[in-house]
């Protein structure tokens, strides 16, 4: 044994797919990438899931063919589940069968037919120069599914989310070390992610995830009336192109931003991601919000006590 040089064990093992609602994935702002050429990347959610791959399901809300800057074609779409939206894109890197699938899907979407999809997808992560983090999906395989299959996925996603909520809760009760977490009964596969999540996200409010789960369970139980909520504010139904963002809108956006920060600031400011999400819910695009936040910071209306957290200058 001693003589032979051991081969480094660097076989690439397949990464498992997490069953996950859109809100948990979409709210993630932490990623991890080993430096080796074939090391997997992970998006780490607030509940500590280290996600390289997901299996998700939902309504195709939008699907469009776009030209990218280098002239290649890319399909971009949105998938909605009861908790929120996934953004996905299928480009030339996708498998032949996935591209074929999305071409046919586009026809169906354009016809206005509602379509439920299930897809296995790789987690993608992107950070702008300003530090804003976006997550998106690159589907590997997809299928059009019935409402029964959708409902069955919903309950599995709920069960998985509830288990992660439980693991996350347990992680709060113990020292932030591997040993303590294992002792507390946390699944070995969750320990790394929970440790990273705790350091990065700090204290989080998990109530939103619980509400998402209850909403999804109502739907799975067929209690559609219970699952119905007021229509979202959508004066912005289609995002304006950036050129259209007139000064008037800018002022409106500014007052909305101030309102949001006032409402959400518990003393240490409001983080960029929550802010952008709230503004998105009021119809402002990320680009608009980001630009306005910059302007307001420059103008001295807002300040950043720490990077990515905004406070109103008193």
């Amino acid at each position, binding site marked *: 044994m001693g003589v032979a*040089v*051991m081969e480094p064990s*660097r076989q690439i*093992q*397949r990464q*498992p*797919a*997490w*069953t996950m609602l859109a809100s948990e994935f979409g709210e993630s702002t932490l990623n991890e990438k*080993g*430096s*080796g050429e074939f090391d997997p990347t992970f998006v780490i959610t607030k509940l500590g899931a280290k996600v390289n*791959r997901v*299996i998700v399901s939902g*309504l195709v*809300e*939008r699907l469009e063919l*776009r030209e990218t800057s280098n002239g290649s074609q890319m399909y*971009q779409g*949105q998938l*909605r589940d*009861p908790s929120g939206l996934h*953004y996905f*894109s299928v*480009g030339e890197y996708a498998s*032949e*069968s996935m591209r074929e*699938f999305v071409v046919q899907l586009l026809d169906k979407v354009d016809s*206005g037919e*509602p379509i439920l999809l299930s897809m*296995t997808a790789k987690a*993608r992560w*992107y950070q702008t120069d300003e530090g804003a983090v976006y997550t998106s999906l690159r589907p*590997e*395989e997809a*299928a059009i599914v019935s*409402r029964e*299959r959708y*409902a069955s996925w919903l309950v599995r996603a*709920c069960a998985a989310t*509830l288990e992660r909520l439980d693991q996350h809760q347990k992680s709060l009760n113990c020292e932030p070390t591997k040993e303590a977490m294992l002792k507390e009964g946390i699944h070995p*596969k*969750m320990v790394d992610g929970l440790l990273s999540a705790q350091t990065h996200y700090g204290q989080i409010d998990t109530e939103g995830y*619980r509400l998402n*789960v*209850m909403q999804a369970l109502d*739907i*799975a*139980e*067929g209690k*559609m*009336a219970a699952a*119905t*909520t007021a*229509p*979202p504010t*959508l004066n912005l139904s*289609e*995002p304006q192109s950036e050129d259209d963002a007139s000064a008037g809108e800018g002022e409106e956006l500014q007052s909305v931003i101030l309102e949001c920060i006032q409402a959400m600031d518990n003393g240490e400011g409001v983080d960029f991601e929550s802010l952008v999400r709230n503004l998105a819910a009021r119809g402002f695009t*990320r680009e608009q919000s980001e630009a306005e936040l910059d302007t307001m910071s420059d103008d001295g209306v807002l300040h950043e006590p720490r990077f990515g957290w905004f406070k109103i200058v008193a």
Partner: protein
Amino acid sequence: MSDDDRYNDHIAAVLQECPGADRDEVKSAFQKYEEEFFIPPQDAIRSIIRRFKSESDATPSTPKAGGQSNRPTKKVSRLSELKADDRDIEIEVEIVSHNVREQMIRGESKSIAFGLLEDDPWQEGSGERTRWEYKDWGNNSNITPGSVVRVEGASVNEYQGRMSLNINQSSRIAVLREGSRPVVAPGEPIDIATLPNDGYVCVVGRLMSSRADQIHRRDGSGSIDVVRGRLADESGAIGFLSWEPFEYEVGTLLKIDGAQVKTFRDTPELNFGRTTKIEPFHDANFANTDTLKEGMISTISTLRDGSKDVEIVVNITSWEKRTFTKDGEERYLWSGQIADPTGQCRVSAWTDLPIDDSSLPMTVRITDARVRAWQGIPDITIDREEQITVLEETPWEGELDLENLRIDVPLDELVAGPSRVGIATRGTIVSVREDSGTIMRCPECRRVLREGQCFEHGAVEGNEDVRLRLVLDDKASTCALLISKDAALALLNTDHATMMDEIQANGSMAYVQSIRDMLLGCEVDVTGRIINDGQGAMILCDGASFTEADTGLIATELRAQWGLQ
């Protein structure tokens, strides 16, 4: 509340966006989304607006893909490339030593690890390895002597011209190769069940068996006298091989320091050599031989490839003579199937045993047996007649239902465990591979042909077969799933001829997509055996069915379980 009322606000919102839309049409759209697709109005509203807006404005605000954040990490392969003020370094090193000491830092006692490391761990360079000291401020538990790790985010420390590496609290350690020579504190015995697969250890155990043996040198230059046997404590048992004279009586409690653990196939074994210190040990509370013996009796589910001195009680369910020719001489062995409540596997005997067809099934105790495994199925080998004792009755109650003898094991447990047979598990299908459907197999060896070629036998006329190659996931574990012909056809609710027709009509890519449309994201129950050889786990499946689930009921149960009202 009637639907009308329930949708009112949503309809109004749509009409505001699409003034020309017909109110009833909008309402029926909401109904359709809800009834046919389980999409509540607040989630359907954007899709509905999109539909009713005649013009499609194509300026979405999706995040652009691509782009990478570039952290200024300095990646080096040799320590000599580093400068005194380098930070956020990444390098692959072998850990030479690792010590921990308590240090007072700002009045607080902290344990700081320090030791030596060497660069060029894979010996790719031609020159000498460089050795540096390091300090680990992050208390990383995965830094062990002998391991090769990638250190990410370390920094250089220079003190009086000497350079060393600081592994910081924020550094990340990726283990590339586990330590091949763990140093366990000498004289500190460890439980047999927790022995490492490799390295020098100290154990205290009772001698359960011991027999003289000989190892023949491969080159024919003679043989070496050795002693083989077994040692047990309450946590488990392990075989040993002594290269030195070993004359203790069975039943003696021994303390053995400096034994080397070597792993053969899946089974670790202790090696005693010249430097191993063996002495009788006194501990009145240590479990006695009888108690330990009971703990050593295996079940089929615990058999491991390479195990020796196995004792097990099983039912022999089939028995046949197999002849083969070796060196021009016709020889034979006996081969059979065995079962216990934990599973089924094979048995082989190189000697005639008092077993005949008419007496099956027959309960026997097998002792001192060795185990080989082929494709994950253990095969217990019996060399001598005295290794088996026929028993009057089974130690377990009731008959074994061989047809349905399946042990339910959660997927994450299966994937983390060894190869085994007779399992049932559940998971979600997350991938349908492109080579699912019909395949051609080599008539000689059953290998799948690639473009009419067999890896072993070249161009051959293949036999057509059906199989599904899928991936099954559950609870952050993943496993390849190969479903054989009958089970595949049953799951897809089709037959071979129909499958052929469809593939011919639409092509295999479209056919695979049609399988995906049926299976992707579905939960299935599967039965079969699992092969886990370190390259990832694979289930060879002989039965698969969609999990029957009442989603409403599961939802209600989830609410109850987690207290959601």
